[in-house]
């Protein structure tokens, strides 16, 4: 009402030819326009902030006042086949800095350094390393602090603005380095891994599996992190707890490994300062009871991140401790390949159990002479004896008759030359050479003489210890190559079984049991025969079928004829021993590869023997098994091939 009157009055002024006062008052209309203009601008701005962008600012106000802190989920435990804990967790306390909440980082760090017994420059370095990450995310200053430090920081937390302690479960290794190369280790998620990871799950601060089962089963083991919602004021002091979502622990994985057997295998390898691998597999299922690689990594070095020097030392080590030699190293199979040649010969009808060849110690083929390892020759041998005494000439003859492609075909059917698909990383394929392969990759025609080398497991042939064990199992079980598996069972925190072991067939050679029977009788002679090459493996009360093998390392002329101990380590031959037991009804296959171990029987045999003895001590009538095999290894004895 008043306003209306007022404007009417201004109009009146304009109509009258008023005095100076009226002229002045007339300008009030313009003034009112200016005031109303600003009113409109302010209301419009208010609309923009509160209506148009209201929800966005609401979110920002929420994230201002609500701090969401992740609660790390305890990682799933790893057990052996009997449920014994190999890897579990314990809580560790880390000191972190939340930069956003600190009013004076420099001052806080200066006072914190002596408490943590660290140098201030180290602390600054950690903060520099974290540059680029949001300021509300914690920067880890020190991990796994002791109880006194924790108690001090908790009781003085108001003196250190922005400093918090966070609980993080860390791994506990109950058997030290047991199966370390298979189980693997953890480490802080890298920027590269973060780029590939699901940002819903990983925030960039996590510790994740870097190698082995820890990496391959990350999804099972990690669990789901929990979240703590607290209301904070502008200085970052927590006011009230709003809600908390408890973390969901990771799934428990029961492995097929047997701690006792694994320990025996590893300690025998370690005691002889041996490099190589030991694999024990159930012949009728593919369960891996032992998967040992020597030398092993030391898992303690990896907790909290391995130092650069330690890592470089591992890389430089000529024994390659970082390799899981069960699948990541390949060797010529040597004489262990003779079973493949035998099966090919029997299946193709080239030989039967009565076929004999005369071994004079060597044969000539083309313009070359191919020697048997026994200079004087084996005389007239049939297949059983040829395997038992590992006669090379016999298998030259068989190989020559079946040809390299047939050898490769049977090798593949028994599990060689292709990945087994066991849950181990960077598995090597190995190689079962064929004519086609040589033409394609070596750009050369196959020489028939090369077939002879292949027939006794030399030449282009290479296999992994795991493939060798699969092959041995297949020979023992009637021709079935099972996929080696290491996970027995996965259970979630409520105890629900997520995954159970089931045998899986890789390939099968059907209708060869009658041939394998002949081959196995030869393998039994290897251990139990009078002239067997691994008589030292024999255990009273247990029939074992096995085969020794020597994988030639580059033989330089200058080392020929030298006594074993005079050959430099790196030029000594690799030693294989692969076997199964009990011969009557095979249960397990044991494969031992000792790098530069010289002879299969002496170099690799004792380790297999110790494993078998322990396994069957528990399985069979105790009285029948030779208890003399010590769990703690002794120096290997001499044996001959």
């Amino acid at each position, binding site marked *: 009402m*008043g*306003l209306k009157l*007022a404007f009417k*009055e*201004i109009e009146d002024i304009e109509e009258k030819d008023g005095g*100076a*006062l009226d*002229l*002045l*008052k007339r*300008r*009030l209309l313009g*003034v*009112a326009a200016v*005031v*109303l203009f*600003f*009113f409109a*601008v*302010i*209301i419009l*701005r*208010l*609309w923009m*902030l*509160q*209506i148009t*962008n*209201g*929800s*966005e*600012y*609401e979110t*920002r*106000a*929420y994230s*201002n*006042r609500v701090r969401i802190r992740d609660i790390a989920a305890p990682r799933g435990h790893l057990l052996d086949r009997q449920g014994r804990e190999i890897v579990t967790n314990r809580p560790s306390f880390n000191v972190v800095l939340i930069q*956003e909440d600190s009013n004076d980082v420099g001052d806080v760090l200066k006072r914190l350094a002596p408490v943590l017994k660290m140098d201030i420059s180290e602390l600054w370095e950690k903060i520099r390393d974290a540059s680029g990450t949001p*300021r509300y995310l914690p920067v880890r200053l020190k991990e796994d602090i002791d109880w006194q430090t924790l108690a001090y920081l908790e009781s003085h937390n108001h003196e250190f603005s922005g400093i918090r302690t966070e609980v993080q479960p860390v791994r506990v290794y109950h058997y030290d380095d047991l199966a370390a190369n298979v189980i693997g280790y953890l480490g802080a998620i890298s920027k590269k891994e973060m780029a590939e990871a699901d940002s819903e799950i990983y925030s960039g601060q996590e510790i994740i599996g870097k190698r082995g089962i820890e990496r391959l089963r990350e999804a099972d083991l990690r669990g789901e992190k929990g979240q703590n919602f607290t*209301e*904070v*004021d*502008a*200085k970052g002091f927590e*006011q009230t707890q709003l809600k908390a979502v408890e973390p969901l622990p990771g799934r428990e994985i029961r492995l097929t490994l047997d701690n006792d057997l694994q320990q025996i295998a590893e300690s025998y390898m370690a005691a002889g300062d041996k490099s190589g691998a030991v694999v024990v597999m159930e012949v009728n299922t593919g369960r891996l009871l032992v998967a040992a690689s020597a030398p092993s990594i030391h898992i303690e070095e990896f907790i909290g991140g391995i130092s650069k020097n330690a890592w470089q030392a591992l890389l430089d080590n000529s024994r390659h401790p970082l390799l899981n030699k069960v699948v990541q190293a390949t060797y010529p199979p040597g004489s262990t390949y003779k079973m493949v040649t035998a099966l090919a010969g029997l299946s193709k009808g080239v030989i039967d159990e009565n076929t004999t060849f005369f071994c004079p110690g060597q044969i000539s083929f083309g313009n070359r002479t191919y020697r048997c390892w026994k200079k004087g020759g084996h005389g007239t041998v049939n297949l059983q004896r040829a395997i038992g005494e590992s006669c090379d000439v016999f298998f030259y003859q068989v190989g020559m008759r079946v040809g390299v492609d047939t050898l490769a075909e049977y090798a593949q059917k028994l599990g060689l030359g292709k990945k087994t698909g066991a849950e181990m990383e960077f598995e090597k394929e190995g190689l079962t050479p064929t004519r086609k392969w040589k033409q394609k990759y070596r750009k050369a025609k196959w020489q028939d003489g090369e077939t002879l080398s292949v027939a006794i497991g030399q030449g282009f042939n290479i296999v992994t210890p795991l493939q060798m064990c699969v092959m041995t199992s297949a020979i023992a079980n009637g021709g079935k190559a099972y996929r080696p598996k290491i996970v027995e069972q996965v259970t979630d925190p409520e105890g629900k079984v997520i995954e159970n072991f089931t045998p899986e067939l890789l390939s099968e050679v059907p209708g060869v049991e009658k041939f394998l029977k002949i081959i196995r009788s030869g393998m039994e002679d290897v251990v139990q025969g009078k002239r067997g090459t691994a008589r030292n493996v024999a255990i009273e009360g247990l029939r074992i079928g096995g085969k020794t093998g020597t994988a030639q390392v580059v033989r330089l002329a200058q080392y020929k004829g030298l006594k074993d101990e005079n050959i430099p380590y790196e030029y000594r031959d690799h030693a294989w021993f692969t076997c199964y037991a009990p011969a009557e009804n095979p249960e397990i296959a044991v494969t031992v590869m000792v790098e530069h171990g010289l002879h299969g029987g002496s170099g690799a045999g004792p380790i297999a023997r110790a494993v078998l003895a322990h396994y069957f001590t528990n399985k069979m009538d105790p009285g029948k098994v030779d208890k003399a095999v010590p769990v703690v290894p002794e120096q290997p004895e001499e044996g001959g091939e």
Partner: protein
Amino acid sequence: MIRIDRRLFEHFDMILFLLIFLVCAMAFFNLYSASFPPKGPGMPPYMRQGYFFLISFTAFVFIISFDYQELHFWNYPFYGLITILLVLAFIFGHSAGGAQRWINLGFFKLQPSEPAKLMLVITLASYYSRKEIVEGYTLKDLVVPIILTAIPFGLILLQPDLGTAMMLAVIFVSMTLFVKLRVSTFLTLGGVAMGLIGVAWVKVLKPYQKQRIQTFLNPEGDPMGNGYQILQSKIAVGSGGRFGKGYMEGTQGHLHFLPERHTDFAFSVWGEEWGFFGSAIFISLYFLLLIWGLVVALHARDRFGVLLAFGVVSLIFWQAAINLLMVMGLLPVVGIPLPLFSYGGSSLLTTMLGLGILMNVRMRRFHSSMARD
């Protein structure tokens, strides 16, 4: 000297008074929330402001009791007193934020730059009403007002309090433009002002002041540093949404994300808790008060009355506009309170005295015979 006329009560403007009362009531309620949770010992800000309301209301009653024509005379001692206080503040002043602004009177810390704004309004109104030039003022006519403005302006700038000094300049420009300048004078003065601003940027502005202006231009660039205040204020107001978070429920304010939440950023607290509707109601009332002030000017019985009413309105209007645009992120952070709404005794007292003058002009609009005896 004071003759109480019954007609005075008849002409007491209930609308003006009601508008003032409503804005003050909102301010008080808002301050209660803005000063929660209480910080440290002593009287919480809303209580202190409550006492300031009473003091200011007394001053309001005092100033309507005599005819505003008396201000032609009282203007001189008032001007002298304020100038002395400004000098004292500069010499003995209580330092805050790098500036010497307050004189400690024991029970009350007086900020003389606040009443200086009102003093300038009265002084210029008095001068321009006595020296009336219909065809527009020339540069020569402006020498006296420029000097009268320059003295307090310089003293305040020296404190240094750029925001308040700027307010004096704005009041001078508003009132001078309102009484009409010659075009040539306008152009000359405009040119000189531009030059002075240029010089000021290079020579006079402190680094923190430049920083504030630069931060304003890109507040998101440094959200934890100088852009923090603007950003947090925008978040507070914006997160209020349509209907607000509810009285005493503002998280930005109560968890201290808002800086200066009971002084310069008091409106952010209101915006957060009452939302768009509550804010629109408050701003509408506030601008209605200003428009009503212009109505008072329109009905004033003489040139002095018009100029006084206009001056008081422009004094409140510019501060309110700058403060509101600042808290909503449209202007850089300058220490300008929202009159009546922000905590601060000096500002409240000055504003209520100004509104008292407005009421005075309103009540005496028909009393042409009651000019000075």
